[in-house]
């Protein structure tokens, strides 16, 4: 319950017969302080007449911080009809769901997930006042889905015991943790799907302001724990974190095998409440913690948490990291792992000291490991390749005129492989400039966003296809009327030339709007 909140239960019927009595009772319970917030709990209210409504208005007049909660559908109808739902905060009653005897299919730090029937699961929260959390998770899950992450979105909020739960439709699902525990032969498949999903998430650019920057959270953690380190190591750690490059790419924030599920034949990511933007190292940290960090002193912890032994967890971490970095080079893997561990120990030390969740021995193990790592680590940044080796012909870049030269250089480097006549090369440069500048000027204005440029070359005959993709406002430049080239200079308009030229010098220009993306394709046969 919030501070300075008075909760009053309304029961049965309130009408002209008993309203005077009820009102007297209620006003006797109301506080002196008129700024107090008053909550009328209508869960057991069956009927309220206009005399009762007038009483409600009298209370609200004296206590502006006022709301009615737990309103059943009959009473809600009355409040809606009389316009009360617009005059004050009215919260509907939640459907009550019992999880007694239901199978627990997931458990995290903040609550449990139960299967309530064949098609539905309910995620419960330890926090009794979880409505804010539920709302937040719903919003970020919706955002993630729109941006291309396969996830489940809750369709209902229900009352579970003293707290709340969100209901998801999740058919025949099982987590990767369960698959690894029960079907060890699927280990490699799990690694490949898991890493594929991670790369997919990290490849997504999130519009500014939609998700928090995870780096800020980590700076806060390091600031809290840095004084536990000897000498100037704490300052060095803080500097390392501050120097991690900013990124607008999506981060899941808690990417371990209990949060990846196979539903039917579809792989989904769940538990979206930690979604953020930032450098990929932050996701690798949550992974290292889940598989190795938490259980470094006591391997039993990972068995209890993930359901498979510590040896499997370590192997899964190592193989996933190698696949994520597209390398088998153990030195390279180790170098990145050291960066990840540095940040992991900082996270674990802060987490354990704040929640008092680790014994002295574990804490000093983490601390000593961190102290040993810090002198060797000079940067927490590393090269990532989200392309799985096949899309090096693609460039994702901020759509701004300043990046034009980078785009042209990229296209020319792609054309370098073929024997492109200088004239055709210049024509393609021209088309690339016109289209990219158009995107830079209009697609996201006044905001900023990214564009993807892809160059494909097919042989026999040699044909170059250049594709531009942006997630800006839908706009088909081909719909624009061509300028009338027969007009005199006085009559000629200044605009519209770029796309016109592009159409003239390329063999084919086509546009489609698909999955929230403007896709413009240019083709030229050499």
């Amino acid at each position, binding site marked *: 319950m919030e501070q300075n909140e008075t909760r009053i239960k309304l029961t049965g019927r309130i009408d002209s017969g008993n309203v005077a009595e009820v009102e007297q009772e209620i006003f006797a319970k109301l506080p002196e302080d008129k700024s107090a917030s008053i909550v009328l709990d209508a869960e057991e209210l069956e009927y309220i007449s206009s005399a009762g409504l007038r009483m409600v208005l009298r209370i609200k007049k004296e206590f502006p911080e006022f709301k009615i909660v737990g309103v059943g559908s009959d009473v809600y109808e009355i409040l809606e009809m009389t316009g009360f739902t617009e005059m004050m905060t009215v919260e509907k009653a939640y459907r009550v769901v019992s999880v007694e005897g239901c199978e627990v299919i997931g458990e995290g730090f903040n609550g449990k997930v139960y299967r309530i029937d064949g098609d539905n699961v309910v995620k419960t929260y330890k926090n009794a006042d979880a409505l804010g959390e539920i709302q937040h998770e719903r919003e970020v899950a919706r955002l993630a889905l729109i941006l291309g992450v396969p996830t489940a979105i809750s369709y209902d909020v229900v009352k579970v015991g003293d707290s709340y739960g969100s209901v998801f439709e999740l058919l025949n699902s099982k987590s990767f943790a369960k698959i690894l525990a029960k079907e060890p032969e699927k280990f490699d498949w799990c690694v490949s799907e898991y890493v594929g999903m991670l790369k997919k998430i990290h490849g997504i650019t999130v519009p500014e302001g939609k998700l928090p920057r995870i780096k800020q959270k980590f700076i806060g953690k390091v600031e809290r724990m840095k004084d536990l380190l000897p000498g100037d190591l704490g300052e060095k750690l803080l500097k390392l974190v501050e120097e991690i490059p900013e990124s607008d790419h999506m981060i899941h924030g808690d990417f371990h095998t209990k949060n990846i599920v196979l539903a039917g034949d579809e792989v989904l990511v769940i538990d979206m409440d930690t979604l953020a933007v930032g450098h990929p190292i932050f996701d690798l940290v949550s992974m290292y913690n889940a598989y190795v960090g938490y259980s470094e002193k006591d391997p039993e912890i990972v068995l209890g948490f993930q359901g498979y032994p510590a040896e499997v967890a370590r192997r899964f971490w190592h193989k996933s990291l190698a696949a994520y970095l597209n390398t088998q080079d153990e030195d390279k893997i180790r170098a990145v792992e050291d960066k990840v561990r540095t940040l992991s120990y900082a996270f674990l030390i802060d987490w354990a000291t704040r929640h008092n969740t680790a014994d002295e021995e574990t804490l000093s193990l983490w601390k000593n490991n961190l102290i040993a790592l810090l002198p060797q680590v000079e940067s927490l940044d590393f090269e990532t390749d989200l392309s799985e080796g096949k899309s090096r012909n693609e460039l994702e870049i901020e759509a701004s*005129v300043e990046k*034009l*030269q980078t785009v042209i250089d990229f296209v020319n480097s792609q054309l370098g492989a073929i024997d492109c006549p200088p*004239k055709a090369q*210049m024509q393609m*440069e*021209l088309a690339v*400039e*016109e289209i990219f*500048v158009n995107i830079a000027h209009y697609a996201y204005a006044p905001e900023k966003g990214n564009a993807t440029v892809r160059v494909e070359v097919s042989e026999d005959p040699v044909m170059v296809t250049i594709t531009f993709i942006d997630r800006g406002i839908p706009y088909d430049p081909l719909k624009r009327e061509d*300028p009338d*080239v*027969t*007009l*005199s*200079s*006085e009559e*000629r308009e*200044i*605009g519209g*030339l*770029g796309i*016109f*030229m592009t159409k*003239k*010098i390329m063999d084919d220009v086509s546009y489609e709007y698909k999955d929230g993306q403007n896709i413009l394709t240019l083709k030229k046969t050499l």
Partner: protein
Amino acid sequence: MTIRMEKQADKLLLAPEGRLDTVTAPELEKTIKENLDGVTALTFDLADLEYVSSAGLRVLLSAQKAMNGQGEMKLCNVNETIMEIFEVTGFSDILTIE
């Protein structure tokens, strides 16, 4: 891009060299604006112009519009690549090209 400029009384010669594109066109536009007062004969020498995009064409078109009211404008030493762009866009018909 660099711009070579020669000004004699009411005659102005501008020779943009290199690339006249989205990034460099504003520079040429500014040079024209600052020097066009009282000019009755404006000449662009395009001998060393390698590339022109629509942003560059727009600058040439506004210069032509301005000169329509105060004198004459012509382009000389137009190379083949640039000429083709003028032809595609109909600029070869509205600009005076020598």
